């Protein structure tokens, strides 16, 4: 087994080990009673993210969302777990695969769906699309698709907060490939030098588009060890266990908030669908069906639901009601987006400069 998988997390190791075997039963430790409410809320958050993204996938063929979409289906625990550990006024930034982060941080669903439809009511007024999400009211200060680009910018958010004495934590969501970019290293060095209140939350889903880890990073060290090399405190674990993610992120947020400097968080996870678009891509040859099935067995939603059930804390009726409410919310968001006006052509060059 490559070392980067062996050292990444129990989940990744488990998935790899079972890739060639048959069914597997993930560990399902019981949930402490004090955490039942949190677990229920994480389950709902993940389910909402998934339903939104499935709705995007289902409706993408209508050709109304004319922009690339990068879905996080399968990776919901990272977004939900990290954001649940934040305060409403904490800040976050992300990359191209940002729907989950935006929603988990409290971003406006209507504005997101409208933006994907290129409408004037979108969160960027139709200038951005799926890859440029922002909701300042929710503390989500932007997402951009150039890999790694928001890592230094989020570092700058934390730098400004520290300079001005604002007590707040910033989270930079990034993928495994972003750790290969120069600005990742430049940012970690600077953040540690100035002990900035920032969490670098790395979702390691093993692929950059179709390029696997083995062609991108040596198997002699794990990603979190790079951060440790810059002197950062590092945490890592099962990115498909929402409660575990929440515990790690809470720990990270507490130390960042206490002025103890930046924290690097590596979360092992996996995307189910294609890199870009609504479909499935196991047939094109860059990954195996077996690997996909092994990870699918680690579905963060099914796992948490089972643990709540085992703890006799899963109320199927209440859950069904909640899902129905989410679906109504989603349907309304799509209907509103499709009915919303496009930006006026005369406004094309607005917002290039302050005076415009």
């Amino acid at each position: 087994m490559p070392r980067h998988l062996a050292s990444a997390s129990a989940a990744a190791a488990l998935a790899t080990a079972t890739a060639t075997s048959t069914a597997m039963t993930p560990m399902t430790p019981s949930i402490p009673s004090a955490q039942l409410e949190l677990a229920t809320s994480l389950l709902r958050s993940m389910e909402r993210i998934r339903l939104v993204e499935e709705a995007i996938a289902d409706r993408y063929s209508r050709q109304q969302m004319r922009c690339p979409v990068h879905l996080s289906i399968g990776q919901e625990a990272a977004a939900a777990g990290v954001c649940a550990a934040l305060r409403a006024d904490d800040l976050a930034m992300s990359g191209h695969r940002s729907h989950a982060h935006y929603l988990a941080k409290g971003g406006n669903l209507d504005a997101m769906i409208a933006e994907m439809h290129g409408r004037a009511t979108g969160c960027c007024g139709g200038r951005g699309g799926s890859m440029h999400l922002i909701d300042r009211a929710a503390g989500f200060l932007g997402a951009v698709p150039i890999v790694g680009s928001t890592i230094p910018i989020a570092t700058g958010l934390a730098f400004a907060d520290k300079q001005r004495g604002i007590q707040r934590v910033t989270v930079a969501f990034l993928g495994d490939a972003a750790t290969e970019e120069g600005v990742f290293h430049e940012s970690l060095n600077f953040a540690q030098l100035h002990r900035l209140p920032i969490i670098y939350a790395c979702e390691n889903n093993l692929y950059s588009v179709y390029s696997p880890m083995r062609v991108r990073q040596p198997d002699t060290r794990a990603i979190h060890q790079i951060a440790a090399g810059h002197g950062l405190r590092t945490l890592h674990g099962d990115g498909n266990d929402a409660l575990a993610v929440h515990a790690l992120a809470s720990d990270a947020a507490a130390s960042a908030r206490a002025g103890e400097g930046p924290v690097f968080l590596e979360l092992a996870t996996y995307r189910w669908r294609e890199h870009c678009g609504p479909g499935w891509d196991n047939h094109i040859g860059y990954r195996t069906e077996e690997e996909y099935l092994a990870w699918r067995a680690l579905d963060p939603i099914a796992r948490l639901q089972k643990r709540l059930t085992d703890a006799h804390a899963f109320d199927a009726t209440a859950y069904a009601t909640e899902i129905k409410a989410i679906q109504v919310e989603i349907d309304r968001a799509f209907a509103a987006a499709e009915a919303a006006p496009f930006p006026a052509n005369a406004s094309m060059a607005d917002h290039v400069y302050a005076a415009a």
Partner: protein
Amino acid sequence: MTPPREISYAAAIREAFATCLARDPSVVLMGLGVSDPKGFFGTTINLHLEFGEDRVMDMPCAEAGMTGVALGAAVNGMRPVINHQRLDFALLSMDQLCTQAAKWRYMFGGKERVPLVMRAIIGRGWGQGPQHSQSLQSWFAHIPGLKVVMPATPHDAKGMLIAAIEDDDPVVFLEHRWLHHLTGPVPEGHYTVPLGPTRTARSGDKVTIAAMSYMVIEALEAADRLAAEGIEAEVIDVRCLRPLDRESLIQSIWRTGRLVVADGAWASAGMSAELIASISESAFGALKAAPKRVCLPDCPTPTSPSLAADYYPRAGHIAAAVREVLDLPPNDADLLVPAGVELDKPNPAFTGPF
């Protein structure tokens, strides 16, 4: 009445910083060497003692990352100025400057603002060579969302730098290193020079010389020489490349009918091409002759001083170009280098290094 106070271009830059740092606690300077003993060619000297190393901040050797940090800080309420002792180092940060900062307001639908200044030194001489001398103002001027300024006088250096720092958009502020020692009248205290309008550096009716940055100094010398022969040239200081004040140039061409553009950069796909294209599109009927460009030869900057005379365009090249657009015979005296003048030095007192 006391004559106006005269200080150097470098001192004017320092005054602009001191003025902004004192007025606005959100202003912060970052850059390798802003707090070093040389004080960034004297332009930031001892500011860190006055305002603290948190606000006049040396930084890791990480241009791209630090430009992103400055962008994030700008988005989050500060007014950072990121400084590069050579423009060439700023190229490491093109993603953060051109793809991120320049787009930030637009791509988020006007909800964000980026009060960021990227300051870089450009220019020639004393062996700067291929990788320490690039004048790539045209790269930045190509990008909607950036503002690009290159003042030629101490007065404009201070006023435009303060305006740049107070601007809510990202501004690329370019200084030619040969301007730093030049002196001129500079008001004390706070004032701004708007980012946009050109400056008429000299009035004339026979030809318009549109010049940028240090080439304004060379253009004025060329105009002096030509005036001695009865040829009155108008020198327009194009001190802001984006937004570009095309209208003032067009007006000048309608007066003179002839255009020479002097840019201390390469000609191909450059600002000189943009100026000539703008005039051709908007005032073709005013032109009495084909315009001329005075720019660098189409090769990287050689280091050897022996190649300086043929590499760097100067007043004589501008005068020669003016003769061409006026259909006058060439004058071999234009390109003579007077005894004692060394073309790789900004002034006789300079003994290197930069």
